[in-house]
């Protein structure tokens, strides 16, 4: 299994995976949990990279799918926890339901008690939601800033909905105290394995013929259409796949973190994901990994002392990356490496389209 990578990067990939694999042996539980959470964010960023970096759809609402998957899992674990520990809250139902005057778990929520039903249900539900949303928007050539703004509003509404329906979602406080899988080295490895599989999958998608078409959509939607590709269908497909990936990441996140709140579904995380991808390098899969780990890592190291400074810094970094380094860290490095290799081989460097794509595609 070569992970579909060129040979010169294979060793590096194996090394990184190896380091991540043995990391828990050398770091404490705290850092292991933290890295596990980061890996969930990496998967989220990866899904954004697929739709934004490769297909050129800027969605500012993809946390809906991450948070959706997370809420399914958290709710399931919470129901199970309350049912198996009736002494804890005085009755067999979750504390937040009790506070809001429910006396029993609603019938339609019962099946969620089984995690093996809830987790796949969450992933499928998010896939369906993305499919419907994609069908409505992409089929009508709603693209670019319109798409960004609509997804942003979607994300905001879902966040408010979660806060509002507190009897079922825990409202503003979110869902906590459901017996998480933190400090569990096996679970950490599960997350790592899923991450690796997702990268392999994303690599397969993007290097295939299908991936070429996605990138041609990014470069020029109208021209791809004229070549006879049903652009909307490609977009809907990749949007749905990305949503399901996000849902998986969210589910793992909820199970590991042991607390989930409206922030995991709102615009803040949606846009944060975009920032990670932009900093790492959109249109390069590994950029999603690098960007997320860098930003989240720096955040956890710095913000312990300078919480206020950190926000300001992220804003500035983001502006600078967008203006001065639109290819991100990995994108810029790869571009340079390719250029150097071409020059060393005595060839002129090939023309490379930038990952920013041709955005002002007319609808004609």
């Amino acid at each position, binding site marked *: 299994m070569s992970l579909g990578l060129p040979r010169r990067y294979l060793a590096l990939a194996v090394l990184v995976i190896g380091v991540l694999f043995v990391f828990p042996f050398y770091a404490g539980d705290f850092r292991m949990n933290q890295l596990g959470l980061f890996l969930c964010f990496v998967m989220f960023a990866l899904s954004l990279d697929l739709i934004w970096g490769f297909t050129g759809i*800027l969605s500012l609402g993809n946390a809906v799918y991450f948070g959706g998957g997370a809420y399914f899992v958290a709710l399931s674990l919470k129901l199970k926890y309350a049912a198996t520990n009736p002494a804890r809250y005085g009755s067999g139902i979750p504390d937040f339901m009790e506070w809001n005057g429910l006396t029993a778990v609603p019938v339609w929520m019962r099946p969620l008690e089984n995690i093996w039903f809830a987790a796949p249900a969450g992933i499928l539900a998010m896939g369906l939601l993305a499919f419907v949303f994609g069908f*409505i*928007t992409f089929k*009508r*050539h*709603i693209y*670019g*800033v*319109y798409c*960004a*703004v*609509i997804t*942003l*509003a*979607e994300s*905001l*509404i879902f966040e*408010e*909905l979660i*806060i*509002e329906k507190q009897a079922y979602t825990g409202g503003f406080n979110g869902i906590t105290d459901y017996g998480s899988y933190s400090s569990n080295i096996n679970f950490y490895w599960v997350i790592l394995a899923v991450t690796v599989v997702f990268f392999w999958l994303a690599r397969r998608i993007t290097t295939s013929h299908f991936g070429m078409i996605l990138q041609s959509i990014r470069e020029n939607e109208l021209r791809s259409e004229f070549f006879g590709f049903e652009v909307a269908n490609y977009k809907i497909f990749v949007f749905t796949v990305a949503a399901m990936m996000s849902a998986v990441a969210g589910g793992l996140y909820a199970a590991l973190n042991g607390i989930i709140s409206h922030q995991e579904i709102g*615009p803040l995380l949606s*846009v944060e994901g*975009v920032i990670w991808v*932009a900093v790492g390098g959109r249109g390069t899969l590994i950029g999603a990994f690098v960007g997320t780990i860098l930003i989240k890592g720096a955040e956890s190291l710095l913000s312990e002392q300078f919480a*206020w400074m950190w*926000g*300001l810094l*992220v*804003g*500035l970094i*983001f*502006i600078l990356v*967008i*203006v001065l380094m*639109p290819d991100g860290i990995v994108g810029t490095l790869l571009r340079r490496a390719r250029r150097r290799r071409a020059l060393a081989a005595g060839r002129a460097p090939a023309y490379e389209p930038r990952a*920013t794509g041709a*955005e*002002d595609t007319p*609808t004609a």
Partner: protein
Amino acid sequence: MAEALFAQFLTGFSIVAILLIISLGLAVIFGVMRVINMAHGDFIMVGAYVAFVMQEYFKLNLFWGIPAAFLVLAGIGMTVEWGLIRQLYGRPLETLLATWGVSVVLQQGIRLIFGPELRYVRAPQLLDGDFAVPGSNLPFPYFRLFIIILALGLLLLTYWILYRTDVGMRVRAVNQNRPMAEVLGIDTRRIDRFVFAFGSGLAGVAGTILAPIKTVSPGMGFPYAVDSYMVIVLGGVGRLVGTVAGASVIGESETVLAFLYNNVIAKLLVFTLIVLVIRVFPQGLFTLQRR
């Protein structure tokens, strides 16, 4: 019930008025530059803080806050246009992301200067109290009436600038066909800067009149900005009537539905409505055909 609904409908007018002021700025900017300013909500927020500063440090009431906020925000807008948006010309998505960065910086900056706590701004004393709506005995606050009049005034002003002045004609020319306008000798960069400053100034005005109704805090602008993006999506670009229609539909239906159900359900319903409408009219309800 019917009377309460009518009262809600009247309150809706002031919501529409605020939304209209916010969206006017955004719509003019989007029409000319095809750029969505993600920091628009934070421009509103800064406007509210300008009103707060005028009240606390200069002891001047809101009537002074409004022009002050317009000038401050026009200045900020001009700076952002010059330093950032111009660098990203022709890449609307990049611009959107960069202005998100501006939004983060503004929020954090305000938080650093004024702290995270809520601030309060008083309405001018002249506008205290209610009056009875003619034909019924429903009370209606003077301040809300003032907001409606102000919004109508700003709408007329915008209309006048766009359709009755020389610079407005240039703005419309750039809106219709940028390269052609450039060929004909219009300095499109100056038009961009003017439009962006004007739109940002309107956001500042919206912030000052929001300040007495809502509490002032660093994150206050975002929901309003999202609503105004929806106004653009629904109403279309390039024609003021689209913005007015969008703001009216969204503002009124959100207020009335919020009364019948609740805030969040209202937003959800309105959002669904918008998505369905653009399914039929992808360009929004009223859009000027570009050439």
